[in-house]
């Protein structure tokens, strides 16, 4: 009997001590963790809105985001509007997108000019695609090729050509070789996102 009581008391004390210490560590680090999250989100949104902070430091990124980006509603849809330095001229308007990737959801943001004619920026900020293959959708060379491409969605919208093939047409970008399924997902997601964005920008309301 004494053995059992001891066992229970011992385990309870041990669990309490471990819980206390872990909670303490979590509380002590939670500000930092939140800051990291904010920085990551802001950095991703800036990239999606084709805004490029001068440095990669937390302050540059967060300040630029605070100053230049506003969340607005166009046609009942939530959009993120990036302003030029003057705070009035619209640089780009973006929407979040999400869709099915090869392994799991792919999320990010895409933006166009205020009229929705050409793509300004795109970022695939959350995905679990294979590192080195589908995971390359997160790399700069892949996202950079979207800039300036047509957002008008003529025909089937953006077409993905094999990696390395010349993709000079207004609706052509290169896919990632070795990651066919991820590329196909990305194409579907991006074209859908552009449709959403056009719908947000189409009506006369809210234009500037």
């Amino acid at each position, binding site marked *: 009997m004494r*053995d059992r009581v*001891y*066992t229970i008391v*011992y*385990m309870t004390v*041990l*669990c309490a001590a*471990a819980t206390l*210490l*872990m909670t303490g*560590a*979590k509380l002590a*680090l939670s500000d*930092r*963790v939140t800051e*990291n*999250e904010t920085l*990551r989100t802001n950095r991703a949104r800036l990239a999606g809105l084709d805004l490029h902070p001068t440095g990669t430091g937390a302050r540059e990124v967060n300040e630029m985001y605070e100053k230049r980006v506003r969340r607005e509603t166009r046609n009942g849809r939530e959009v993120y509007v990036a302003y030029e330095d003057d705070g009035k001229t619209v640089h780009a308007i973006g929407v979040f997108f999400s869709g099915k990737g090869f392994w799991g959801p792919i999320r990010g943001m895409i933006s166009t000019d205020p009229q929705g004619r050409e793509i300004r920026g795109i970022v695939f900020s959350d995905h*679990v695609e*294979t*590192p*080195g*293959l589908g995971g390359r959708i997160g790399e700069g060379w892949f996202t950079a090729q979207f800039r300036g491409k047509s957002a008008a969605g003529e025909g089937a919208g953006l077409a993905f050509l094999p990696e390395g093939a010349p993709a000079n047409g207004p609706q052509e970008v290169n896919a990632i070789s*070795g990651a066919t399924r991820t590329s196909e997902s990305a194409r579907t997601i991006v074209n859908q996102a552009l449709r959403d964005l056009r719908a947000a920008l189409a009506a006369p309301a809210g234009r500037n």
Partner: protein
Amino acid sequence: MAQLPSTRQALATGLWYDNAIFRQVLGICSALAVTNLMRNTLVMAAGVIYAASMSSLTMSLLRDATPRRIRIMVEILIIAFYVVILHLFLKAFLPEVSRDLGPYVGLIITNCILQGRLEAFAINNKPWPSFLDGLGSGAGYAAALIAIALVREPLGFGTLLGYPVMGAGWTRWTLMVMPAGAFFVLALLVWGCRYLSEPPQEGKR
């Protein structure tokens, strides 16, 4: 069990004679999962060394107070505690690596090496030798992981720690990026290390 190994012996045992990966073939899951990039491998290796040595030390300190029949619970609790702390630390100070490693940091809790050492050594030995035993096992795991990453990252990405090492025209070996590639490298490593260590061992026993 009674004789205390010297520092050097404890480390040599973990690193080579009883190496967790190529001798005991433990901890393979994470060895396959995190070794396609050296950066992630180094963080994972450091994490396991820390968790293995600290949990061995703690188990050893608690060994006389712990009732035998609940020792497994206590072992898991100790390991989980250190791993949770590690996970929090990575999230706060190395957020990118933390995202890359995903669930694998948390899975150190179920890494057979750690509990194996607590159960086989720390629970019956004094704190300092136990600490060294954990350190040695962790270091052995780390060494094997680094060896695998040293092959996989250059062949799979053409880089090492992100720096290009294979020249501009390098064709990436997709297989090396995928977990399957790790099986090949791991098998070759196990073969190579056993070939090197077995002949003298047979003479002794």
